[in-house]
């Protein structure tokens, strides 16, 4: 028996996580029209950064105490890698053929995976991630795990902060201008190189927070964790309308809920018994992506293409 409120909670938690990662894809795409396929690995490095912080602390440190440090080191590591990737891998190729940075992104993704595999202690297998102590919260209509509570706090805080930053601050407005017309943004006196670095940095920071959330959920981090998470978040970004930060979050939530529903209920449909359960969830996610690309290629909140007069 699958309880609908519980399944919905699962889906929303998963979706919020996808959405946080998707912000990184969508912000970078919105400004430099590049799909940063190494973003999944930046997420993974955020997870390892957080784990490292935990391992530095004395044994038996409570998670409430450790969490701020884990988030901090995770965010620092992921942001540094994201900014470094921009500076040394993508910036030299800017203005060149569109295919070059894309190939570089795939290469960088593999290189980062292999670097963690080779150089992080014991990373050849999954490393256990610290877990919350204590049980779930019973809210009556739904039970909420501590891991889910974390993502339900972290994701809205990040999103609201980003939305306020983009809409209200001078730098946020410069960011919007750069994404709408980079050359003209330069004519306003905006240092667009710095705006691009900022987009990579924010994306990296959010990905690290998502990686901590995923570490709590799955109880481990491993060097390949960025691949599927990155693909899902990319799907979420396209689903919501790539280039649109609200779209990334909504796309993530739609994707997460759709996956949770498919896992819980597809097997109950007569004749579909063999497609039920968790092993088919990626298939449903990508079928959703294909449907969106066919029916609404600009995504749910996609931007009109004809608004440049």
């Amino acid at each position, binding site marked *: 028996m699958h309880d609908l409120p519980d399944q919905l909670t699962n889906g929303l938690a998963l979706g919020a996580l996808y959405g946080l990662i998707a912000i990184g894809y969508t912000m970078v795409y919105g400004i430099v029209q590049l799909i940063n396929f190494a973003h999944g690995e930046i997420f993974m490095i955020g997870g390892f950064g957080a784990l490292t912080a935990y391992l530095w602390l004395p044994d038996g440190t409570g998670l409430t105490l450790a969490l701020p440090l884990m988030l901090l080191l995770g965010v620092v590591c992921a942001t540094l890698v994201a900014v470094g990737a921009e500076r040394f891998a993508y910036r030299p190729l800017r203005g060149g053929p569109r295919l070059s940075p894309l190939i570089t992104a795939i290469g960088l993704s593999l290189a980062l995976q292999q670097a963690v595999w080779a150089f992080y202690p014991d990373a050849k297998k999954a490393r256990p991630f610290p877990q919350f102590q204590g049980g779930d919260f019973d809210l009556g209509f739904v039970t909420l795990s501590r891991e889910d509570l974390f993502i339900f706090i972290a994701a809205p805080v990040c999103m609201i902060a980003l939305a306020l930053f983009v809409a209200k601050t001078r730098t946020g*407005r410069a960011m*919007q*201008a750069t994404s*709408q017309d980079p*050359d*003209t943004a*330069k*004519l306003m*006196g905006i240092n667009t190189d710095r705006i691009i670095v900022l987009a990579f940095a924010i994306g990296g920071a959010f990905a690290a927070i998502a990686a901590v959330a995923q570490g709590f959920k799955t109880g481990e981090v491993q060097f390949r964790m960025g691949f599927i998470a990155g693909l899902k978040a990319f799907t979420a970004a396209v689903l919501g309308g790539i280039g649109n930060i609200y779209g990334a979050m909504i796309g993530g939530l739609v994707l997460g809920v759709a996956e949770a529903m498919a896992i819980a209920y597809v097997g109950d449909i007569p004749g579909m018994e063999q497609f039920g359960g968790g092993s088919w969830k990626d298939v449903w996610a990508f079928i959703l992506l294909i449907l969106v690309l066919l029916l609404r290629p600009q995504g749910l909140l996609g931007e009109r293409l004809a*608004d440049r007069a």
Partner: protein
Amino acid sequence: MPLLEVEGLRVAYGKIEAVKGISFGVEAGEVVTLIGTNGAGKTTTLRTLSGLLKPLAGKITFDGQVLNGVPAHKIVAMGLAHSPEGRRIFPRLSIEENLALGAFLRKDTAAVDGDLQRVYELFPILSERRAQAAGTLSGGEQQMLAMGRALMSRPKLLMLDEPSMGLSPIMMQKIMSTIAELKAGGTTILLVEQNAQAALSLADHGHVMEIGRISLSGTGQELMHDESVRKAYLGED
């Protein structure tokens, strides 16, 4: 020493040279126009002056400083504003946000507010629609916004690229009379236009560009009465 001095400027896109060695100057307080057909290199010249393109050779001096190698976002701070071809307003930002971006580098908040009021007085329609997304404006209104945005940096030199392009005759009249008004107010302007008649009647000096070179220079009046200019650009036989 003129405000802007361009010497032997050459600019290329890959192997194709669009500007093949031009020299001209703009004195403070005057209006100088570059006229010529499509592909003559006028827009390329302006984009190089504002730092969006890198010159192949030549020297650009503005207000006593050499502009070669200075990135675009620093050139506007030196007092050179560029209202680009095709207007290029930020479509999903409001009119007021577009104008605020024109003053992006300015710290003198009170004076910026004053300049904003001045732009609204110059173009009342923008004031009425200040909260509206700029992409919803008509072509003429977008041109006003692009000019207003460039003025918001309080430039020493205002570069206008094809301000009358694609506008109705009435709107073109309005834009040209605004340029005359700015000139009367002492603004130094470098104007690129295909509408040679309108541009020359406003300009103190003009230069005719043909496939990357300046073929003829003179005062606005001289060029307007020049036989070859009349034939080629003013539509007379």
